[in-house]
């Protein structure tokens, strides 16, 4: 399986007309349930903040917004890499697809490193899951999300390895789409989490 020549433009292979759900339907059930879980967490966050506005305002002072900003940029970039991987495989570019996928994994690593240094600082300052409702939400929601990033990385690695073994092609690349869909969901959740936790408070 080698990359087919670039005579096929990415436009040509994109399923513009027919309705197409990228990836496996089973994954989409999972994505919808995950979104529901995050949605309930965000709603709870809003309620908790409504109940204890001062504690939330004080808590927000102690977290590091710069790290949140950096991580948003990293995740958006990771999402972009993985979207490029899908485009690549649609054009038959197996090798390019694998490279973009690894780039996506790398963005996840950078994200995790930033996240852990952020946790390290806060824990060093004496905060943890039980330092009040604000810190519970901060630690739990971001850690829950971080675990999703890690799961997304595991999925991307699995997809990249399978892709390298030549299991995906321009004709059959649903596995790449499935992994990419999960990864973008993780990004989407962060796009909501970022303003709520890091910007608004």
């Amino acid at each position, binding site marked *: 399986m080698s990359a087919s020549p670039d005579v096929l433009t990415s436009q040509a292979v994109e399923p513009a007309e027919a309705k197409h759900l990228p990836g496996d339907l*089973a994954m989409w*059930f*999972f994505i919808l*349930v995950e979104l*529901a*879980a995050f949605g*309930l*967490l965000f709603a*709870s966050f809003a309620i*908790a903040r409504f109940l204890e506005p001062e504690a939330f305002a004080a808590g927000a002072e102690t977290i590091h917004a710069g790290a949140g900003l950096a991580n948003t940029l990293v995740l958006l970039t990771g999402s972009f890499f993985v979207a490029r991987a899908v485009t690549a495989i649609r054009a038959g570019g197996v090798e390019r697809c694998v490279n973009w996928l690894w780039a996506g994994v790398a963005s996840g690593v950078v994200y995790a490193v930033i996240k852990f240094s952020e946790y390290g600082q806060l824990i060093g300052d004496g905060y943890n*899951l*039980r330092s009040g*409702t604000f810190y*519970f*939400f901060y630690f*739990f929601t971001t850690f829950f999300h971080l675990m999703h990033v890690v799961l997304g990385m595991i999925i991307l690695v699995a997809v990249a390895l399978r892709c390298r073994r030549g299991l995906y092609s321009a004709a059959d690349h649903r596995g790449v789409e499935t992994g990419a869909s999960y990864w973008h969901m993780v990004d989407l959740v962060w796009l909501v989490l970022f303003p709520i936790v890091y910007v608004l408070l």
Partner: protein
Amino acid sequence: MKYKSQAVAKPYFVFALILFVGQIVFGLILGTQYVIGDFLFPAIPFNVARMVHTNLLIVWLLFGFMGATYYLVPEESQRELHSPLLAWVLFWVFAAAGTLTIIGYLAVPYAKLAEITGNHLLPTMGREFLEQPTITKIGIVVVALGFLYNVGLTVLKGRKTVVNIVLMTGLVGLAVFFLFAFYNPSALTLDKYFWWWVVHLWVEGVWELILASILAFVLIKTTGVDREVIEKWLYVIIAMALISGIIGTGHHYFYIGAPEYWLWLGSVFSALEPLPFFMMMLFAINMVRRRRRNHPNRAATTWAIGCAVMAFLGAGVWGFLHTLAPVNYYTHGSQLTAAHGHLAFFGAYAMIVMAIISYAMPLMRGRVANNAQAQKLEIASCWLMSIGMLLITLFLTGAGVHQVMLQRWPESGEALAFMATHDALAGWFWARLAAGGLFTLGLIAYLVSFFVPQREVAPTEDAEAQTAAA
């Protein structure tokens, strides 16, 4: 019946139903004690009757699950059971241990039973649902290990279907989580925290895997829908069950001393718990709609659909009703808890066992299905029991709401005391007892349906041809 060894399921089913009758008898006693406080006192105090009622429930469901496993594993694996003899031996061991334990509960005071069985050596008794003497608990572990060995080898050596694998993970989980019954620290909150690993992770975790796989088996057999379709839905549904149910354990950690964050965690994740039950209901109804053939055993289909619907109502709707922490603050440990418990256990677990019994018993008795008359009676019994249980649930819900209004909602000083509140609830409890009577009628009709004479008995060959076609 395709394989001879499937027949070992029969004694398990028969004994399960005998214990079921016992459970209901004690349920009626309890219902009566709720309105006539000294009924049968001191011969059978309330705590003894309740212990018998709940323990019989657990044990008859376990017998039902084991019978279901022995019936469906050989058929799914396409080979005989590894050791039918072991299955028989374990049947007698478990039945004897169970019977002795119940006799122990009834014959001597509980403290005496604890002393006789050496509870002080490894204290595990006296906790809700885990009242069994330590030695009985050890017996349960031994039976479970033998059972898993027997069934596990059969699955390993045979065809590995999704139904088989999901059932096995459920059964292994059941055995593993039961081990927490032996952990009983002095620190009460710690004790309660891990107690739920047995109770919640059973009924809202691994038992759901067992339920879903038995349901899938019955649906594959009775609807003729492509196995592939049923199996992938089975995976999705149980995935949802575990995703929501594992952290959903948190709804039990609100008010027993665990950290405050469980109020949020338990509320968020248990709000998702109705989802798998909703999917299961849609799934069962859909599969029956899309059926490729009309299986002659309509009663089994009725039980299967009934199970999915009642499980959704009992576990899904009635669970959600009081699962959010601010609501649960007032309803925790009230009659509402009892309402939810009754409908959830009946809908999800009692009914799935009756569904597999309904499907398998006629086959083990040499016919594809019972005759029309027997099935009519059986279907009527399903409706009677379901309506009886729904009424029990509704009356207990009424009692629960009324109890909260009188006892929990008002400030200290204005709130009614527990006993006075219960006196005020007597009307609800009388109605509940009457509904229990209706349920009992349903149970009697169900048992009678096994003895309806079969005039046009289908020959065994036909039965096998029918099953083979599935």
